[in-house]
Each structure stands twice: as C-alpha cells, then as structure tokens.
C-alpha cells in the first residue's frame, strides 16, 4: 500500500555492478518506502536477479559505482550477515539444500542470532517450537518439515514455502523475492502469495522480482518497474503488468534503443 509521508526504506542511486569483469547493472535507480510493494519485471538477462543478489551482498558480484542506502545506512559496506540482521531478506530463486542440518535447528540459529543482535533473549528449543508453530500457519506448512534437513528432498513448492517461513520468522524490513513464483503450481502459488501478503505491513516493504504477470494477480504491487540491459527503463502502476503480458518486452527494448 502507498502510505502518505512514509519513510524511505531503500534508496538505490546509479548502482553499477559486474560479475567476473562483465558489467551487468548499468545505473539502477529505485526508491522504496515503508508499506509499498514494488515489482521488477523484465526479460531474461536484464539484470533482475543480479540486482537482488547485489542488495543481499553475494560475494561474486562487485559493485563498481553508485550507492544503496537502507534505513539511512550504507548497505554496500556491510557483509551479507550484517545486511540480513539489519532487515534485508532475500528469498532465493533456487534455495539451497543443506543435508545434515535440520530445518528447525537452522531456523532457530538464524532467529537467535538476530535476537542476540537486537539484545533480546534467545529462545530455547521448546519456546522456539511454540514460536514456529504460529509461523507455519502463514505458509500452511506441515510441522514435519521442521525435523527434515533444510530443503533436502523438498519439492519446488515446498522450498519456496520454506523461504517464506524464514521470512515470517526473521520479520525483515525489506523482503526481496527473487522469482519466487518460478516452478510453482497454482495451489503453491496461492499459498506462497497469501504468506507474503500476510507479512506485508505498513512498516515494511517488498520487492518482487518476476518474469511473469501471473504472480501479480496474487500479490498486487503498488509500482511496476521494467528492467532492461541493467537499468530500470520504465515505471508504472499495476496496470503496466497487463500491458507487458499482452505486448511482451520487445516494444520496450525497441523504445529504449530509440
């Protein structure tokens, strides 16, 4: 939702970044305020996923220029764990499997690290279990997933639900969802979207990265940005998604060239 006079949470100015010497981001500008949901769309290879990884601090991507201010703080000078502790959350397009670590141990470690950072009490096994039970409802997840290894043997949909569960537990200020809809059937898409909508408040903000309009039927954005060749080239309201769905991305590519 667009809230009058709300605080800017994320401000990206002229951001450029490269991977293995190849420039991918060529001057990205974006401002996201509390309460807002932004969608970044665009063709394959336009730099959408790179943008999300740069924000989360993936070591393979080198920032070559520009600035990213998150809640008044220079995000780029923080290591990835400091960014997540400050309230940046990236839901992965391909969540990793970690055999040998149970989901509940992993979630508790992440949660308690954050609690410690905030100077709050860490939760023991039992208290954390109570805490998680409520969060499971957000993504309609079976508690049996807690005792399994992180993402190991999970279906595509279960992995994405697990990502949103992590988001529910860590309560970030900025959630970046990287192609969260990819590989989801219609039921899983509904559940994951419901989860994201439940977690969206006037205090936090969401950036959806997606290729398809489909997700935006479930999570309605306040703004849609189109990324092309490492830049945001077009910004509009939610109606832009429909136009993109019917006309594709080619016309934008053409217009950018002109």
């Amino acid at each position, binding site marked *: 939702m667009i809230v009058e006079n709300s605080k800017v949470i994320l401000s990206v100015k002229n951001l450029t970044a490269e991977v293995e010497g190849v420039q991918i981001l060529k001057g990205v500008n974006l401002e996201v305020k509390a309460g807002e949901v932004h969608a970044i769309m665009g063709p394959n290879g336009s730099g959408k996923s790179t943008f999300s990884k740069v924000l*989360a*601090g*993936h*070591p*393979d991507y080198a920032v070559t220029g520009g600035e990213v201010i998150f809640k008044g703080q220079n995000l780029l000078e923080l*290591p*990835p*764990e400091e*960014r*997540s*502790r400050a309230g940046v*959350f*990236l839901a*992965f397009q391909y*969540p*990793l499997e*970690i*055999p*040998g*670590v149970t989901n509940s141990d*992993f979630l508790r*470690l*992440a949660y308690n*690290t*954050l609690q410690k*950072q905030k100077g709050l009490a860490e939760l023991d096994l039992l208290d954390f279990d109570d805490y998680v039970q409520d969060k499971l409802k957000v993504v309609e997840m079976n508690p049996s997933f807690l005792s399994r*290894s992180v993402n190991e043997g999970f279906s595509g949909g279960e992995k994405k639900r697990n990502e949103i569960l*992590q988001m529910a537990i*860590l309560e970030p200020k900025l959630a970046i969802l990287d192609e969260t809809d990819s590989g989801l059937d219609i039921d899983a898409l509904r559940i994951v979207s419901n989860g994201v909508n439940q977690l969206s408040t006037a205090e936090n903000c969401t950036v959806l990265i997606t290729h398809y309009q489909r997700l935006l039927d479930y999570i309605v954005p306040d703004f849609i940005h189109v990324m092309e060749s490492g830049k945001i080239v077009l910004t509009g309201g939610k109606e832009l998604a429909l136009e993109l769905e019917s006309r594709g991305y080619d016309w934008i590519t053409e217009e950018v060239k002109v």
Partner: protein
Amino acid sequence: MIDLFVQDLLSQQPNFDHAPAWLKSLRANASDRLNYLKFPTTKDEEWRNNNFSELKDIALTTVDSIVEEPITNPIHILDDHILPESAESLITFIDGRFSHEFSALEGLPTGVFIGSFKNFTHLGIDLAASLFPHIGKYADPEDFFVALNTACIDDIAVVYIPKNLNFAPTLQLLFVSHQGSISQPRCLIIVESGGSLNLVESYIGQDSPHFCNTVTEIYLGANARINHTKVQRESDTAIWISHCAIAQERSSSYTKNAIVLGAKKSRTNLQVQQLGEHTETNLNGLTLIGGEQISDTHTAIAHNFPNGNSQQLHKCIADERSHCIFNGKILVAQAAQLTNSKQLSRNLLLSPKARIDTKPQLEIFADNVKCAHGATISQIDADELFYLQSRCIDLESARKLLTYAFAAEVISKIPVDSLRETLSEVVLAKTH
C-alpha cells in the same frame, strides 16, 4: 630375515607357557610368517600413502602380563568414554588385557558370553571347539600387522551370542592404551544364526606416544544381525592400526559406522566376506582430522554369492595439513549374480594445505549386477555459505555448521543416543 622391530617385539613377549595348545600353535605359525613378511613401506601399493617406519624408531614397551598390579592411570580418561547405555554390558581392556575392575557384565542371558577368553566357561561347549576355529580365520594371515598381532596374542576379548538370541543392551568394548606402550587388542565376535547384537568398539589412549595394533574378527551366522559402531579417539601422538575382518553367512546383515578422529597416524583395514546368498553389508565411515594427522582407510567387500547387497558411504574431512586416504574395493565374483552394490566417497578439504586421496576400486566378474560408485572432493560451497549468511548467520558459524552437517550424515546413523550426542559435540568443537 626377520625384521629387527619384530624380533625386538617378540623377544619382549611374556612367557606363554600357560596358554592352551591351540593358541600356542596359532602364535607359532604367525611368528613363522613374520620371518618372510616384510614391514610394509611406501613401495607397497596398499601402503604407498602412509608410512609407518617411524614405529621402528620408537622405544615402546609391552606390558608384562605377569605383573598383575592394577593400572590406575587411565581411570580419569575412562569415565568420559563409558556409555550410559552400556552400564551393565561393558568390557574394558587396558593395553590389550582384560580389566575386571572396569568391566560390568551383570545378569547376562543364558548362553551369552562376554569377556576374556581366559574366563570362557560354557556349559556343554568346548572352548577349543567353539572359538578356536574362528580365531585367525578371517583376518588376512599374510598381512604383516595381523601376523604381528597374532604372534603376540595374550588375551582375547570374546563376545558370543547364541542362536536366535537378540542381545538388547548396547554392548561396549572399550580399549585403552596406556602411555609408552604397545598394545595389541584382539577381539572375536560371534553371533550365531538368528542372533543380533548392537556393538560399540571404542579406542582411547592417554596423551603420550603409543602404538595400538588391533585385530577384530566377526562372524555372523545365517540371518544374524550386527550393528557395529567403531570409534577411534586416540591421543594425537598415537599410532593406531586396526584390522577388522567380517564373515557373513547367508541372509545376515552387518552395518558398520566407523568414526576416526584421533591418532597421529592411523590405518583402518576392513574386509567383508559374504559367504551366502541375500547377504547385506552397510559400511558408513567418517574421518575427521587436522594438524599433521594422517589417516588411511582401506576397505574391501567381497560378494561371492548371488543376490548380495552392499552400501558404502565414506566421508573424509581434512583440515590444516592433514592427509586422508580412502581406498574402497568392491569385489563381485562370477557366482555373485544380481549383486546390488553402491559406494560413495565424499571428501571435504578445509584448508589449502590439506590433502585427500580417494580411490574407488571395483572388480566385477559377474555380468548381471548393479554396481554404482562415485567420489567427490570439494571445499565448502560458497553459495551455501552465502545462503546461511543471508539468514543472519556469520561466515565463521556458517562454515562450522556446514562442516558439521557434512559429518552429521554419518554420525546420525549411529543407533546409540549418548554416543551420537557426544560425537556431535566433538565434531562441532573440532570444526573451527
């Protein structure tokens, strides 16, 4: 020409006059073999990565079996290693000799024997007839260290589970090496047909140089089951060589979880013979070492009959300047049609100076079999680290967690709760 090291060792042996005739001849035969068996060097293919020649330079003493004074030194290290699950089914051998004081064998079921062979009393069962045929039968007699162990047998830890008896408690065999000693523990485990046993074999040592050369022979009758966990937590200055030979009759099932954490140099030999159809063998191994440690594991599973199954997972984690070696042989004889065998060797390098050598070795003579094998050597995955970091976990903790997770796959298979928990803690403490 007999090796000087061997000559020295044999000459230190106590007087064996009181031993039974079958044991005397077993020892004498092994001594004879030591006349032509050579001390293995890096020129021998099976030993090329691990050199034990320093054994010859170390002045170690054997324990004189005539002196019966109790050894009090190891007591304080014992407590940490006795499993609560085995409070009433524990045998302890100190420097290769049975210790009454630290063994607890209360109310064993009728027909079960656990203890030193010297105390083997079985109503109606002749000692020589029931034990002798098994001793020295399965462990390769032509192996130098097996021959050395056999030539010096003074005591034998014997476990005898009679037909169709399910021995419910976890049985622990605890072997303690004392400072500056050579200990050569010998074990014989017999589970007669239809019987079952959950066994934990633990090796610990005082923090001083010593040499432990152990031989364990295991016989499973038809349909027998053994779950065998072997944990080596020797001191960092010890040299440890272990042979374990397993003979499995038809439809028996043997599962091994072998954990190697200690010793400056260690060598594990594991040989499994399937002696009948529908036999199942599961081997899980974890070696986690650092510093200058070297650990070498050689396993061999011989499928000799149709419809045999085997599964093997061996994991090595090498930190600092350590060196792990794994050699896993799977033999499928021509008669062993419809064998189903899987082997996986997974290895983790934690430091640029660490080294891992792995060698899966399949020899298949049957044409209708399913055999899969694989080997990987890698570092901790950078994307996995980033995933954890993006969930608030710092790099150091993420590394630790991923290393622990790599090891946990093997540890989680151990069917003894307290041991699983202890080892998890030890592994977490070691992964820094």
